[in-house]
């Protein structure tokens, strides 16, 4: 399949290799193989594949990997710019999605989600 890659060099993903203890948890949760392990530490291999979901940062016990998590959804950005609650859902990554319509936007865990 054609590989879909979004914009170059935009994501807020950062890694402090000195803090990394090589537990590998971040590799497990990442849905896009952004990080790889070499010599007992992770490094960022495919930066542009990162979708800033925040799973790696939340699961890193030493805060070695950090990211400003959010949902990459234009409708959500427009809605929050207009200062209204999102009415359109953009959480459709899961196969059984479609359940988030009309749910109030939550600011938990710093996400600017739309559903």
């Amino acid at each position, binding site marked *: 399949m*054609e590989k879909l890659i979004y*914009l170059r060099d935009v994501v807020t993903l950062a890694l402090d290799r000195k803090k990394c203890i090589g537990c590998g948890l971040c590799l*497990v949760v990442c849905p896009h*193989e952004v990080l790889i392990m070499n010599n007992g530490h992770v490094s960022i291999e495919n930066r542009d594949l990162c979708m800033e979901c925040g799973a790696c940062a939340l699961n890193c016990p030493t805060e070695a990997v950090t990211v400003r998590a959010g949902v*990459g959804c234009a409708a959500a950005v427009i809605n929050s710019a207009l200062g209204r609650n999102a009415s359109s859902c953009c*959480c459709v990554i899961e196969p*059984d999605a479609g359940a988030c319509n009309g*749910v109030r936007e939550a600011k*938990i*865990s710093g996400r600017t989600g739309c559903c």
Partner: protein
Amino acid sequence: MSLPGLDQPFVKGSVQTRMGPVPRISSTLVRADRWGSIKARWGVGRMRYTIEPGLYALENPDEKSPVLVTANYKMSFDRLREALPGRNAWILVLDTNGINVWCAAGKGTFGTEELVRHIESSGLEHTVAHRKLILPQLSGPGVAAFKVKKLSGFDVIYGPIEAKDLPSFLDAGLKATPEMRRKTFTIKERTVLVPVELVGTLKWALIILPVFFFLGGLGGPAGFWSGALNHGLLAMVALLSAVAAGAVLTPIFLPWLPGRAFSLKGLAMGLITAIILTAFRAGNFSDLAGRIEILAWFLIIPAIAAYLAMNFTGASTYTSLSGVKKEMKWAVPLEIAAGTAGLLLWLGSRFVT
């Protein structure tokens, strides 16, 4: 301590545990389950498509059976049990207000605290002898595995992204292949999302299309009906093809369209659409008004297509918020400018020349 109700329609009996009767469920979906899924997909009462959170027994689990965690959106729950025919397992359902795992994880409702709360309230430590929980990988943005371990003593093991991979994951000794961990965005997955995008847009089209039809009839030297049936109809066809370009064709042809920004891909599809439309109107370039009219559509169609394509970022499985913001910074002003300029030109072609 509380256990989910036994009176829910999909529950078949119960399994006795130290904590009381745990509702038993089967991996076979019945007609009511399927009908519910169809209704949920089409948005009929889907805000209430929930089940009671808590511990369930898939068939006849014992203290050694695996524990799988999911959201209380009925469709997530059904997908999970359906993937496990002939297996015994415990299913711990978190209260996400009927929202699927990925969305709920992003909002934090499928989160560390909620999980720990349910481990305790279901008395899981008394029901199983092991200390392992299998969570869907896509709950990662909400659940910090190491914190769950610290707070509850349970190890969180991230399972595959898709429930259908669970049997092989379980048989491999809780090991996922790299393919199971990768979120794809195949042509099939993209196509399935098209109707959702389209429905929202077509609602607007129902209001706007008649206006253009009417305006098409008002201006120009010919009578109302001749104008409406010529220029008004062209406007309706042009607008609908712009919607098709941005909300249908761009998602489907996504990997093959140029650029990385969705607006660029939509723009390309919009230009192709405008060219095709022009080819059908080749006879109308003789007068100035006809030429301005075509020019107007060359601005409006790509502008609409780019805008709708940009909105598809929300449905995609790989766009980041930083990227979307960067894209919008240049795309939105351009889309508005091109759309407005096109509209003025079109009105000019009908009323001025």
